């Protein structure tokens, strides 16, 4: 009985930790979804944007010696400028190209941002210290990482804010109109270019928040942009076009891979975290090819 209870507590602990890590994946996936919804671009650069945003924020903080809130706001400005540049120099030149060409262009953006960020701010591991708590809570024998809890809360707040933004504001409604039908949106006088800049800015902001969270957890370093690859199975599972999908997909992937690592890993030699999420998503897609909440793909000849 004693061991059963401690086993159960351990299970809950692993599950919770997985769910909270999953919410961090969701934060990255959110940026992907925003851009895919509004412009149909599969934005591979989201991870690089996250790294670049976090690097800029830490870099500005170090260089000017200002409080982190000021650095955060300046980083937001940097991300808006980046969104403008991407629209002006990349997407604007590639209007009406096939999705794979746009996808390729975002890979180009990824390379550029990785190189640019590290050229400007250096490639050492930087410490992101904005006074987030670390250490663990002890709730009835279950240990919860405080930082992960804050991250989970932040993810929830982000989603709420985005939901309000999309449903209640004028720009948000314009965004949804563009997502539904480019042509129709243009014909009622919505400027596509402006919307794209807004969407990339919002995705940059989401990337910045994700970067702050991951940066506090792991330090701001190059491997952050690789973590973004983990957001891909989240996207597949949730569907490329669904914000709730990104959240729920993140939670499933996060908890699934933690549980698999602890309970299945030892039987096959461990380190299955690297591919388990992809396999989970792939098997899942066999049954529902458009993901959990993705729009049903209707094809006509």
């Amino acid at each position, binding site marked *: 009985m004693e061991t059963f209870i401690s086993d159960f507590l351990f299970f809950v602990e692993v599950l919770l930790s997985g769910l909270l890590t999953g919410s961090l994946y969701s934060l990255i996936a959110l940026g992907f979804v925003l851009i895919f919804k509004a412009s149909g671009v599969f934005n591979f650069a989201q991870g690089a944007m996250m790294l670049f945003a976090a690097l800029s924020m830490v870099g500005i903080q170090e260089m000017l010696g200002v409080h982190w809130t000021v650095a955060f706001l300046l980083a937001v400005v940097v991300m808006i400028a980046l969104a403008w540049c991407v629209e002006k120099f990349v997407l604007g*030149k590639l209007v009406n190209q096939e999705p794979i060409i746009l996808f390729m*262009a975002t*890979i180009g953006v990824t390379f*550029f941002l*990785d190189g640019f960020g590290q050229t400007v701010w250096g490639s050492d591991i930087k410490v992101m210290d904005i006074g987030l708590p670390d250490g663990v809570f002890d709730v009835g024998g279950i240990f919860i990482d405080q930082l992960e809890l804050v991250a989970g809360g932040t993810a929830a707040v982000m989603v709420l804010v985005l939901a309000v933004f999309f449903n209640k504001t004028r720009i948000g409604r314009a965004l949804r109109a563009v997502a539904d039908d480019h042509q129709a949106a243009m014909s009622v006088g919505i400027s596509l270019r402006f919307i794209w800049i807004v969407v990339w800015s919002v995705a940059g902001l989401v990337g910045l928040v994700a970067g702050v969270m991951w940066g506090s957890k792991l330090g701001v370093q190059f491997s952050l942009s690789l973590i973004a690859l983990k957001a891909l199975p989240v996207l597949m599972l949730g569907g490329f076009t669904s914000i709730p999908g990104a959240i729920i997909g993140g939670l499933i992937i996060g908890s699934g891979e933690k549980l698999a690592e602890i309970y299945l890993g030892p039987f096959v030699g461990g380190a*299955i975290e690297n591919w388990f999420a992809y396999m989970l*998503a792939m098997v899942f897609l066999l049954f529902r090819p458009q993901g959990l909440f993705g729009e049903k793909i209707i094809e006509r000849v």
Partner: protein
Amino acid sequence: MFYREAGQFKSSYKEDQAIFPILQDRIGVGLILLIAFFGIPLFASEYVLSAVMIPFLILSLAAIGLNILTGYAGQISLGTGGFMAVGAFAAYKFATFSFMIGQYEGTVPIIITILLAGVMAALVGIMFGIPSLRIKGFYLAVATLASQFFLEWIFIKVGWFTNYSPSGVITAPPLEVMGYLFDTPAEKYLFTLGFVAILAMAAKNLVRSHIGRGWMAIRDMDIAAEIIGFKPLNTKLSAFAVSSFFCGVAGALWAFVYLGTVEPEAFNINRSFSILFMVIIGGMGSILGSFIGAAFILLLPIFLSNVPPMIGWDIGVDLVAHIEFMVFGVLIIFFLIVEPHGLARLWTIGKEKLRSWPFPY
């Protein structure tokens, strides 16, 4: 071109459907092969042969493989590195396998080993191609990452593949064909070139056959292709099989001819991405494009890392690496904007223009 097909009359269907119907094209291809087989090994330095030409040829082969899948059959794949790894490790297992016939103990000949490795990769490719029957587009692209990470993991974790080598590194056996040892860079180059030339020609022929037309039909609109009678199961899985065969052979050559000793990290996700770049920059749906793309992606970093020292600009090594990244990214975007259909397309356009030059009306 400065020549036209005017005056070259065909009197049979066979002549009309020849792979290079125009005489000058045949001469051109013959010249290129002549230079590749005799000119380059005679005049190129050892460094150029072993550090530029051999990887260029092998990566071109992998790019042809991916181009068959992505450019011709329209299935985006990010698992190329994984299939190359299957080729490399399968070749190693076949090469270290010995059998007994009577008192005679033998090993599998190296060429057969490499081809068998391709077949193994094809089988694995078919397995990972099955989801493509349900999943499409970017969903499939992400799903193929599963094969990349899973295959990489399995070659690190399962000791059997490396014959329980403690470091997880495999060492290729010497390249000996019928008692002749391919040892110097020039010989190794010729060995690679033989494979690449034959397989590239096979690919060129394959994509204009019934099978290749099936792939293109599936790419353009899979439902329509199904309606006119191409079975998606056969068509898609054959694309995965052939593509993986090419990648597997490329992986085996990469391990045996280029590197010699290999660990699974040589076939990581970055390898998959760089081959996808080659296909897209070079031109999707073009065998020539695979070569151009491979040359571009392989030579550009070599060129970029040599520029700052050449102009006497002394900066740190890691800064050079970062700037390389930046320039690489900018050039990818630049070429996509200039010609979204790849460099091979520029070649085609140039040919069209020259056809009517200097009197375009």
